[in-house]
């Protein structure tokens, strides 16, 4: 995927950031997760990916958000593209035509961008904890990341 493609995928996040911010007040003091925003995003989500693929997409969105919030992180474009391919392969069996593929890719990019937006909101609200967990991922040899 080109840089343009990545930015295109993430640009949808802008609209979500405000939404996620609005949900912040609903959180309990000991829970930094934007429960309401995540609920709005995932509860009615069509099964465009498997559970494992959704989890991988979450991690990509998180890592993209980390580069905006935490110092010392930069996306490796090649790793990110490879990670996105890994997270989205195979496509659902229901995707059979080029038009289906186009619609499915759009849905995946939208979901990636929306998740990215919520992670931006969570991270900016509590950067210390957010970046501490980013550092933990970077140090974890068992889990690959897409940073340089």
């Amino acid at each position, binding site marked *: 995927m080109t840089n343009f493609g990545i930015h295109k995928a993430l640009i949808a996040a802008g609209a979500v950031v405000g939404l996620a911010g609005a949900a912040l007040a609903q959180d309990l003091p000991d829970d930094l*997760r934007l429960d309401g925003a995540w609920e709005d995003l995932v509860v009615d989500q069509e099964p465009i990916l498997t*559970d494992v693929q959704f989890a991988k997409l*979450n991690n990509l969105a998180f890592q993209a958000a980390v580069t905006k919030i935490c110092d010392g992180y930069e996306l490796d474009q090649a790793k990110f593209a490879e990670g996105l391919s890994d997270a989205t392969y195979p496509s659902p069996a229901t995707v059979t035509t080029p038009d289906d593929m186009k619609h499915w890719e759009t849905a995946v990019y939208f979901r990636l961008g929306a998740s990215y937006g919520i992670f931006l909101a969570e991270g900016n609200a509590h950067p210390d904890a*957010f970046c501490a*967990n980013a550092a*933990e991922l970077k140090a974890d040899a*068992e889990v690959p990341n897409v940073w340089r």
Partner: protein
Amino acid sequence: MRKAILGATLMAAMATSGAVGLSQSAVAKDNTGAVIGGLVAGAVIGAAVASSVNHPSKIYVNPAPPPPPRPNPWANAFSPSPGVTCYPVQRACYKANGAYAANMTAKIFR
């Protein structure tokens, strides 16, 4: 009160215009009393209609009952290890510090 007078005048005018058509035949029948009675009745009705202007114009209808609350999507959250909570619906894990735990997410949802 001005509205009542206006309404009465309006009704009277309507009654008069209607009476004009009748007056030609009414002259022959000498129904003057009936015409005057009609005018008086019109004035009374007009006043009543005009006074109704002050009545509330909005009709309140009981709102539909709110939809039942959605089931809690996080009810099936679980803790695979101390200090970690995972949310299957979100396919994500969070640490006790409150933030997203990418490495735990990768290990649990695979």
